[in-house]
């Protein structure tokens, strides 16, 4: 840990950095309550996204969601607190009656949702107007474009639509003299993991400690022969960091599904039991942090390891072939070290837990 003493200190470069610095572009450094704004045309899927990702609504139930008529503000209390603002699609965001400064002041990221199954030209036009308007006052806002509902499109058509949207947005922006705008694009759908993956990337840009986390995970992976390690936010299933080896969506999916398994089973058997008399002396043998392990039947298949890191975070590792379960004790120890290191990276989170727990 001594190698990275500055991990928590926000960057102070005179040139405003664009990507992955983790600094919140427009907010006072360190107050750590970024805002995610969900915007886009009506019926593009904004409320569905926010319900599926943050409220665990089954995707099929989103059919019954009603039109959003006013800004819905929701606070997420997790490893870092952030707010999600769901905007009604029909609003003109730059109407003078609106307090623009108030909306965009502490923004962490602007998520623009485009329905890929619908006519998207108007959506792109509005997106560009928004970006150009924002460019003056808040030049460093991360603009994240979700090309949404791609589940309904064929593979070819999906790629074409995606490229077409990127092309159109960028062309128009550069026509207005705005080259290399900080706009990222994602293909998303609430019916698979892509929406979580996209949110993970969006959130990661807002975490100042990301490089430190990645370094820690890298070192854990190399020591324990871990193929891939993810640090998950348990509640939202967004991963806030992973080691720097190449990611494929498959390993994210399997880890995310694994969390579901553990959470679901924990919910079923973790109910409040009436206190059992005489069992008090057995209490100390239970695990404080949940842990879980899945070994596969066939030889040579990977196995999965999960360890609760704190109230919000869980570490999930996909073990490589050369790391048989007999070495679990060593892995347990190393993960313990990692956990201790993480406490130093997120001292605030730990303090919050202490403060919040009595309430």
């Amino acid at each position, binding site marked *: 840990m001594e190698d990275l003493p500055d991990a928590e200190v926000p960057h102070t470069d005179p040139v405003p950095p664009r990507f992955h610095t983790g600094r919140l572009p427009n907010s006072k450094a360190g107050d750590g309550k970024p805002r995610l704004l969900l915007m886009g045309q009506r019926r593009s899927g904004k409320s569905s996204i926010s319900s599926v990702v943050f409220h665990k609504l089954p995707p099929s139930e989103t059919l019954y969601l009603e039109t959003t008529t006013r800004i819905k503000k929701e606070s997420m209390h997790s490893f870092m607190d952030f707010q999600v603002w769901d905007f009604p699609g029909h609003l003109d965001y730059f109407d003078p009656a609106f307090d623009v400064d108030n909306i965009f002041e502490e923004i962490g990221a602007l998520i623009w949702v485009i329905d890929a199954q619908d006519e998207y030209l108007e959506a792109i036009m509005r997106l560009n107007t928004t970006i150009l308007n924002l460019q003056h006052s808040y030049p460093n806002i991360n603009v994240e474009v979700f090309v949404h509902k791609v589940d309904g499109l064929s593979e070819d058509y999906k790629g074409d639509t995606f490229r077409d949207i990127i092309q159109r947005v960028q062309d128009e922006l550069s026509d207005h003299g705005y080259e290399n705008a900080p706009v990222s694009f994602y293909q998303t759908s609430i019916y698979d993991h892509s929406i979580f993956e996209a949110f993970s990337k969006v959130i990661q840009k807002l975490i100042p400690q990301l490089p430190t986390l990645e370094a820690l995970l890298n070192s854990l992976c190399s020591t324990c022969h871990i193929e891939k390690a993810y640090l998950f936010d348990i509640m939202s299933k967004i991963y806030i960091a992973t080691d720097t080896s190449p990611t494929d969506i498959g390993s994210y999916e399997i880890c995310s599904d694994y969390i579901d398994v553990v959470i679901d089973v924990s919910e079923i058997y973790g109910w409040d039991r009436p206190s059992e008399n005489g069992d008090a002396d057995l209490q100390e*043998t239970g695990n404080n942090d*949940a842990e879980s392990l899945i070994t596969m039947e066939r030889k040579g298949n990977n196995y999965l390891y999960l360890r609760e890191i704190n109230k919000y975070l869980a570490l999930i590792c996909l073990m490589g072939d050369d790391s048989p379960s007999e070495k679990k004790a060593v892995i347990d120890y190393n993960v313990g070290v990692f956990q201790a290191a993480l406490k130093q990276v997120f001292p605030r989170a730990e303090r919050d837990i202490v403060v919040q727990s009595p309430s």
Partner: protein
Amino acid sequence: MNTSKRQKQRKVLLMGKSGAGKSSMRSIVFSNYVAKDVRRLGATIDVEHSNIKFMGNLMLNLWDCGGQDGFVENYLTHQRAHVFSSVAVLIFVFDIESREFAADVISYSAIIRALSENSPTAAVFVLIHKMDLVQSRLRQQLFEERAEYIRQASEGFRDTVEFFPTSIWDQSLYKAWTQIIYYLIPNARGIEGLLRELAEVVDARELILYERTTCLMVTHVTRGAEGQNPFTDRFERISSILKTHKQSMAKHTGIPAGSANFAEMQIKTGRFMFFITRLTENTNLAASIPPSEQVFNAARVNIALVRPKFAELDIASKPRPAVQQAFAHSADSERWEGHVEGKGKEREKEWEA
């Protein structure tokens, strides 16, 4: 041995209107499909037969009967005796969204009539399917209305027919199929007895026996305070969890879903410890035990030791006297044909000599 194998074949008819979701549920329960994959399925032509080996000596002979009017006509006329004879269970699927509910019921009663002529001893299960398409507050009421209406049309099966609301998108499908399978398993009591003994020995809060390929629950044993667990649907939920996990593993590792079995899954928390491990060739055992490392390890060892006993019960056609003498009252190997009104609990008649 050969004959006893054959006698354990149970003919299960899966019927219902075209598009009601028969093949979809069959694919999900028995062929490791995911709910969203079933839209790739085409219409079933005539009858699709599948043999499903279940719990060692129970062989489900599942007839997935295409529901288009032409086929149904054919079942009721030319093939009447062929289709409806020696049926153990009829599963009839209604589509809740159907616009011609009355017509569906008429077709249902025609089938019921054919069944009562040829297999009066069969059990009838009615699944009211696609419940997910109804808004959740209306579901219960609509289900009860439909069930009552269908019951009136059930003629000779009026008192025994059982109704289940189902949807492929949640665990209700597993709940219904668990009941059906439980009804069909020949030696459920014996398995239950042994499981209860095991639960005492390992001090488990709960033991649940799952069939391995379908992840359907065979039976379970609950001890002490666990009986007050607020999640009364936990068995189906775990079925559904296991199934989903299996698919996820298969997808990731690229091995067929049928063989993507885990050797063991452990979950340890401060409140409980839980593990699922393989018990016999066809079953997995899930155990929920108090949060203690010692109990956990002892339970694992004990379960490993008890495997041969269960393996015997799983495959053997001879009853084990110690557990079963209480009910093995008859040497009549054909007796299973004879139980009609069994609500799934009167399993005694089914022992093989």
